[in-house]
């Protein structure tokens, strides 16, 4: 547990030098005034928080500083931390629904964000928790996508259902859901092809996959998890919105947070769209995945 936190902190500390950590420096020996707030505003913008969410954060910090009669610049950090954690917490799901059949996660998102890699990590994590895990290779479109997920299935030592490249992804999903049910699988992870949310026909294909899975395993709990690249800017809002409309995303996984980008747009996503972040990806290795914890995340941002 401690190690996990340390790793998160280490990864995020790069940010600290670059983005939100700057706030801690900026506020030193300063009074809370318009100049300071403007500098903080710029730092938040640079973290991809976006204009509207930044404005709201600044407003609420201002208001609370007034209420609590704070004047020291350094006290702003605590306020911001609280505020950000609160926004990220409010969208967190409370408990999880039970199902008699398997749990089925459709892993969806735009191209190249890390869907396949994340499945490799998730499979490893669930298998280690003693869950009977299975993978469905439903990206039958991209070159060598099946070979790629096959390697991850092997690495995580998890069974995989596959078909030929170019075959109907919904058919593979159907077979996999049937197989998962028949073999008493606890969780089935479905890898789907990357698709831009603006492509109507591809979004239809995704809806069809979801429908078919529901049909194949009516007692299953089917979830859609949206993968977002941590370096994505304001377009993430559009992605979350459209994917959620299409296949009802109930959770988000933010990847590539081992870089210098920090996925600040997730603050705006949580606030405006209320879809919770559940996991974060911190590298290309099989263990580079962590459950998302808003408090720790906000804490580590300023540590």
């Amino acid at each position: 547990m401690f190690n996990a936190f340390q790793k998160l902190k280490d990864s995020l500390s790069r940010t600290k030098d670059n983005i939100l950590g700057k706030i801690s420096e900026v506020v030193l020996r300063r009074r809370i005034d318009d100049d300071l707030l403007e500098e903080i505003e710029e730092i938040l913008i640079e973290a991809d928080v976006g204009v509207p969410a930044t404005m709201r954060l600044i407003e609420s910090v201002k208001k609370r500083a007034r209420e609590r009669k704070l004047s020291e610049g350094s006290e702003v950090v605590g306020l911001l931390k609280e505020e950000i954690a609160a926004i990220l917490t409010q969208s967190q799901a409370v408990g999880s629904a039970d199902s008699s059949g398997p749990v089925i996660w459709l892993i969806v998102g735009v191209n190249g964000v890390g869907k396949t890699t994340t499945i490799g990590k998730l499979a490893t994590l669930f298998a280690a928790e003693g869950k009977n895990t299975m993978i469905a290779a439903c990206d039958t479109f991209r070159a060598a996508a099946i070979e790629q997920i096959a390697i991850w299935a092997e690495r995580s030592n998890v069974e995989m259902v596959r078909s030929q490249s170019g075959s109907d992804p919904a058919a593979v999903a159907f077979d996999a859901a049937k197989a998962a049910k028949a073999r008493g699988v606890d969780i089935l992870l479905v890898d789907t092809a990357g698709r831009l949310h603006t492509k109507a026909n591809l979004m239809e294909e995704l809806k069809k996959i979801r429908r078919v899975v529901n049909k194949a395993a009516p007692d299953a709990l089917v979830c859609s998890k949206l993968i977002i690249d941590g370096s994505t800017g304001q377009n993430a809002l559009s992605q979350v919105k459209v994917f959620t409309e299409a296949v009802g995303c109930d959770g988000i996984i933010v990847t590539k947070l081992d870089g210098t980008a920090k996925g600040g747009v997730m603050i705006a996503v949580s606030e405006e769209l209320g879809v919770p972040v559940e996991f974060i990806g911190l590298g290309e290795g099989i263990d580079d995945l962590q459950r998302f914890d808003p408090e720790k995340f906000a804490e580590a941002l300023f540590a």
Partner: protein
Amino acid sequence: MFESLSDKLEIVLKKLRGAGKLTEKNIKDSMREIRRSLLEADVNYKVARDFIKAVEQKAIGAEVLKSIDPGQLIVKIVHDELVALLGGKNEPIAPVDKSPTVYMVCGLQGSGKTTLTAKIALSFKRKNKKALMVAADIYRPAAVKQLQVLADQIAVEHFSLEGKKPPEICHEAVKYAEKNFIDLVLLDTAGRLHVDDELMTELEEIKALVDPHELLLVTDAMTGQDAVKVAEEFHGRLGITGVVLSKLDGDARGGAALSIRAVTGCPIKLASTGEKVSDLEPFHPERMASRILGMGDIVSLVEKAEETIDMEQAEQMQEKLLKAQFNFEDFLEQMKQLKKMGPLDSLLGMIPGVGKAMKNVQVDESAMERMVAIIKSMTIEERRNPTIIDGSRKKRIALGSGNSVQAVNQLLKQFNAMQKMFHSMSKKKFRGLPKGMMPGTFGNF
């Protein structure tokens, strides 16, 4: 998703109508809107700030032309400045004239490098150049296989070496190319973080060994503020010679383009616009500027229409419209064509000015579905000759399509109105329109 910049400026500058010159106060107000618009497009905030400063100078004292309103004038100044900053005109990729010419492709994970090497290989194959795709990514699972599949798809030779490190693979590939009369060597390197010192050193080694004629950085158009750091680091360590913006087929405004260009000074040479190996275009600063400003991208819209709509059919349809022979069968066909182009909202968003004209008109796709259902419940005869649809037929159609008779009536009424409108239009009016684009047809519903 975003309000058009011109609309916002119009509000800010409303009071200004009639005034001859832009004043500092007007300009300050409009610059705030422009800054916000740039930030919404993910332009880095420092880049946006510098840009605004430069534009502000240009705008102060500019005469408001009689024919143009102040908002439009400012947008024009901003637009022109953006185009200039983005390079003015397209800068072509290095010519393939050595034996061999070497392009090295690098960038963050998942940005679209491997796909790009195939796209470039294909584009030169079409010019009768012999290309070689080199798999220098030994890390990502099945990366080599991916490159091989793509190469086979376009019938281009590929190169890989098992058990060797990327610098050696690249070096050997170039030697192989020299011996085998290859015109263009494409080095597909593994995705890496700009802060990964070890892997960045690997790229430096490759560069030193093969001395590429073009060193391309591939950047995802959806990238946020971080694009600046990524580009700075790659450029600082490698001296990139060109940038490729990928995934431009989505709805990201692509402010990263401006950021990268501003911090590296490197030209953006290519636009990657899809998953297919043929989805590669020269980069057009003009179109990118409009896109960043959220002003719509009429050129792309027309191209998209040309791409997806069957031109012959469209022209036939135009004829029919003009002669008022347009019937429900044609209507169905047109709906099908429209649907192929993608969701209507995103299409309409590409048309400048539409944002304003349709402010309160929700594009209701389900209403369109409903119309299609009604038409589909008509007999062929009814579709071809709607005048025969009487009361009992209406009832049957309503029942068959799961709608009310009122809905059927409404559709018939709209259809009549449309036919009348076309009837009264002269052929001349269509001339200025892009081929195959019919005015008013979806605006009416």
